[in-house]
């Protein structure tokens, strides 16, 4: 059924259609509307049986999800930013124990300096915690990925993180096709756990494992993620047959056939990238796009194959590994091992800075002429940075960096309206 909905509300409805039995909720922007929406649905009685648990922190949210999942319940939670960091230890436990929890991450920057706006630093900081990570391009894909995520998680007995851009998607109203309860029930079988805490057949979950077996346990976790790479395309195809639209899978090529330059990106920025690429194509430029939906496990072969014809690759990413450069680009480079193809890294959209068609077109044009720096910060105010650096050279007590930069750009600390 077509509806015009806020992204958060669309996800809340889709999650409810997946019949979670335990929802742990702790509010943090820009995720809050999702658990609020679910709270209303549970309160109305439309989702039953389901226990909606208000917890005291994100660490508690993930801990409760772990307990619920181990007891055989389908468990869901959502978070963002500092909230994701606060549950970091429990994230490793959920994946290490093989518990199929599904969680939305409404992507937001990490402080300090505190910033509530969108980028991918939060999810990227947990990329190696053993969870599957899927990135949504639109609100339609966000809700579709949640339906797939429960299926994926439970078939593999692994937790899945569905990442959607905070504000840009969570707070955007757009058209979505909401599936019916019958459709979702037909696609998503009842949760049949591989392990369960059952008083009738007692087991313990979470053994101490020493050097004699730890490598084997970790290796199996790796094998499972590699299995996911084999299975995800098939499940996306099944989703397409059942729901009549594309969602999920590993990667999504766009205008890539004869492309000499290919832009790799994740999440909602792909829409702006595609519009930019269409305009450049209209001028005869051979440029294409590769959207990465599944970031963990990393679809090494799919990326390598899709980039097979490219003369150069531009990785556009909303994250930064300080002291390294790009995160996605590092992964792309491993997929291109042995090939002499330049990989340009464009860091953009940090802390919610708008990514515009005009700026993208400029960066892509430079890349096409192989004039782009290997690591570029899109729309960086270089003058501001240089003035702050000059001051640091001159004055020992140069003061706090964030406040100095704000002063340079002409905004007081409280002036971010």
């Amino acid at each position, binding site marked *: 059924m077509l509806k*015009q909905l806020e992204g958060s509300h669309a996800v809340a409805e889709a999650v409810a259609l997946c019949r979670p039995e335990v929802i742990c909720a702790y509010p943090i922007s820009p995720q809050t509307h999702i658990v609020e929406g679910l709270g209303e649905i549970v309160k109305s009685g439309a989702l039953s049986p389901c226990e909606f648990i208000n917890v005291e922190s994100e660490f508690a949210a993930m801990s409760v999800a772990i307990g619920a999942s181990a007891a055989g319940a389908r468990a869901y939670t959502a978070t963002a930013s500092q909230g994701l960091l606060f549950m970091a230890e429990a994230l490793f436990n959920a994946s290490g124990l093989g518990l199929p929890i599904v969680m939305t991450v409404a992507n937001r920057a990490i402080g300090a300096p505190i910033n509530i706006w969108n980028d991918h630093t939060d999810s990227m900081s947990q990329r190696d915690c053993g969870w599957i990570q899927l990135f949504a391009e639109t609100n339609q894909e966000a809700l579709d990925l949640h339906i797939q995520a429960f299926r994926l998680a439970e078939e593999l007995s692994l937790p899945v993180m569905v990442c959607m851009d905070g504000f840009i998607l969570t*707070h955007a*109203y757009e058209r979505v096709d909401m599936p019916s309860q019958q459709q979702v029930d037909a696609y998503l079988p009842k949760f049949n756990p591989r392990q369960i805490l059952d008083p009738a057949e007692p087991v313990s979950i979470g053994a101490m494992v020493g050097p004699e077996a730890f490598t084997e346990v970790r290796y199996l976790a790796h094998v499972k993620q590699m299995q996911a790479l084999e299975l995800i395309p098939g499940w996306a195809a099944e989703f397409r047959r059942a729901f009549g639209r594309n969602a999920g899978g590993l990667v999504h090529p766009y205008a890539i056939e004869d492309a000499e330059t290919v832009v790799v990106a994740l999440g909602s920025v792909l*829409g702006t990238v595609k519009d930019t690429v269409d305009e450049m194509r209209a001028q005869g430029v051979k440029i294409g796009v590769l959207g990465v939906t599944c970031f963990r496990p990393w679809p090494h072969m799919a990326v390598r194959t899709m980039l097979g014809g490219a003369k150069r690759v531009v990785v556009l990413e909303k994250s930064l590994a300080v002291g390294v450069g790009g995160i996605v680009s590092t992964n792309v480079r491993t997929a291109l091992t042995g090939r002499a193809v330049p990989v340009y890294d464009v860091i953009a959209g940090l802390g919610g800075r*708008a990514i515009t*068609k005009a700026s993208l077109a400029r960066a892509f044009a430079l890349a096409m002429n192989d004039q782009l720096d290997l690591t570029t910060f899109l729309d960086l105010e270089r003058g501001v940075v240089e003035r702050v650096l000059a001051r640091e050279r001159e004055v020992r007590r140069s003061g706090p960096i964030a406040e100095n930069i704000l002063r340079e750009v002409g905004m007081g600390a409280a002036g971010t309206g």
Partner: protein
Amino acid sequence: MFQIRIHGRGGQGVVTAAEMLSVAAFLEGKHAQAFPSFGSERTGAPVVAFCRIDDKEIRLREPIMQPDALIIQDPTLLHQVDVFAGLAPGGTVLINTARSFADLGLQDFIEKFKVCALPATELALKHVGRPLPNAALLGGFSALSGRLALGSVKAAIREKFSGKVGEGNVAAAGAAHEYVLKELHAEAA
């Protein structure tokens, strides 16, 4: 694609206005995308929200920098924010004010753009009992832009607000629509 930028202050329902516009367009079978400018929400602070309307899927996610239409919910913003930035020539401007464009010092705009001054706060006070001008402005925008039927705007308002508040806002939108039509006729005559 038709792009609308709405300027107002925190607490005036700027974001809700953009959302209701998108719902009205959706009800007419269009694709529509509404989103706020994602600031920290503070009452009284300048707020911007955006709405795009098209016949095909909207993929673009950048803020609207070259709007086809502006809705200005608070005329005091004229001195604080460059609300007209990027407005396309011949673009539409609807301002919530009981004063004229000439009184506001915007005489030049009358020739360049399709403009209308609408006392939306007064209409809201009359029909809703609170100074929330957004629904009235949408009714007026329907008349000024000719882009959306008043019926779609009313249906969108009813999706957001139920009961007495909803009907009050629907009445304000209807009155605003009538007001703008009268202004347009007066101008044409």
